[in-house]
């Protein structure tokens, strides 16, 4: 190999950039390239470009499922690490009570209904018992209050007999209150997922307790004349599904279907299309 000065770019460095991005460059060549590229904008761009290309080569490998117990083994090992670290560090104070129930409380409630193997407890429960489970149990749904047991007070009966219309109005009022409470409860936000990308402004996926979700955009510049924003739901390993369009950067869009594990993205299009024709300006993954 020739002794190319460090500040002089040559075709050889173009080749080494690819090898460097592949992480298969060795020995003296590795040191030479790193020394050169530290001062060479072209090489830095070449490496960046090659890394971006290679990141996509990884996708050539078909996704596959692990053994059925793989996740349990992984979580168990993590729980053991946490338990070990907790044993050597001061306890973490419990989080303050929260009005909105965290997402995983719902999952835990679901898990508790499932039979568990006592020899292999769920790591989440064994390592980190949820304080909400005991100290802050899931609030009873105000829409479905438990019936009041015991003798009916006599003054209620007499009031009903004396003023049936007022009683009916009172009943309607109570039902309205219950309905409003149920709506409020079901409409509570249980998770938000911020979209990131190149566009200014913000966008987020808001998931309600009811399971409904919507995409909220705020402060995103309006698309250029003749263009719109189109939202996409991209299930893992599948093609994007159009979720809706908007002509402004401040908009709310209901998202239907099960979003867990999907990518939600926004592209700029010339009109409603069935498949994205441009790179998403913002995107996020909705965790399952």
């Amino acid at each position, binding site marked *: 190999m020739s002794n190319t000065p460090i500040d002089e770019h040559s075709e050889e460095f173009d*080749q*080494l950039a*690819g*090898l460097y991005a*592949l*992480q*298969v*460059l*060795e020995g003296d060549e590795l040191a030479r390239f790193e020394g050169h590229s530290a001062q060479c904008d072209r090489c830095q761009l070449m490496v*960046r*470009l*090659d890394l*971006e*290309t*290679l990141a*996509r*080569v*990884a*996708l*050539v*490998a078909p*996704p596959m*499922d*692990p053994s059925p117990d*793989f*996740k349990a083994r*992984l*979580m168990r090992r*993590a*729980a053991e*690490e*946490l338990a070990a670290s907790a044993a050597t560090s001061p306890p973490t104070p419990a989080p303050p009570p929260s009005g909105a129930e*965290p997402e*995983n*409380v719902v999952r835990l409630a679901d898990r508790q209904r499932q039979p568990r193997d006592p020899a292999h407890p769920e790591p989440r429960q064994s*390592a*980190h018992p949820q304080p909400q489970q005991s100290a802050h149990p899931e609030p009873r749904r105000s829409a479905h209050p438990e019936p009041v047991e015991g003798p009916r007070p006599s003054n209620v009966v007499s009031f009903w007999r004396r003023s049936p219309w007022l009683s009916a109005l009172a009943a309607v009022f109570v039902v309205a209150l219950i309905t409003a409470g149920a709506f409020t409860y079901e409409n509570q936000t249980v*998770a*938000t*997922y*911020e*979209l*990131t*990308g190149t566009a200014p402004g913000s966008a987020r996926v808001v998931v309600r307790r009811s399971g409904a979700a919507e995409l909220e955009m705020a402060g995103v510049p309006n698309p250029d004349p003749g263009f719109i924003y189109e939202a996409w739901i*991209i299930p893992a*390993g599948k093609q*994007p599904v159009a979720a809706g369009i908007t002509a402004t950067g401040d908009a709310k869009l209901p998202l239907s279907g099960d979003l867990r*594990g999907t*990518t939600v*993205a926004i592209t700029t299009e010339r009109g409603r299309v069935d498949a*994205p*024709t*441009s*790179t*998403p300006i913002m*995107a*996020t*993954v909705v*965790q*399952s």
Partner: protein
Amino acid sequence: MTTSPPPSPELADLEALYDAHHRQAIGLAYRMLGDLGDAEEVAQEVFLSAWRSGHTYDPGRGTTHTWILSMVRNRSIDVLRARRRRPVQPLAEGVDPPDTSDVPTQAVSNVDAETARVALNSLPPEQKQVIELAYFSGLSHSEIAAQLAAPIGTVKGRIRLGMDRLRTAMGVQQDRSSGQWSVISGQ
């Protein structure tokens, strides 16, 4: 991306990381190692490592997906090199993911999987071969040259040409107005 309010941070973070990325991670490790047991071992170490160091990871420097797969490849190469009974050269792991902050790679990854397959399969066989040997088998250019009984310079040239073709086929282009590289999906 943030989840509000943060649920039981440690294990919940790991579970979220796993649920979002495990199939592609296992798939890549299996493609490289050809053994599910080894692939799972690699994936387990990667997820635990990512989980442990997650608080130091800067999402602005690359997507989590890219980061995870980069670690999977690095660990798999370590395993491959150990199998070949060669001195293992540890590879940088995780803390220095490829800088793709201007590209929401995760968002387009599903769309691009097929594009990537088509792009790789469109390469001339000799270029596809050297890139696969380097990427999936972790062979150095000198090892590839020895395996193919080809001059090292030829291997280097094939890799460069193959990378350039892949870049074009995958739609990775330079945004001339900003001087930044960006990925054009679906091309």
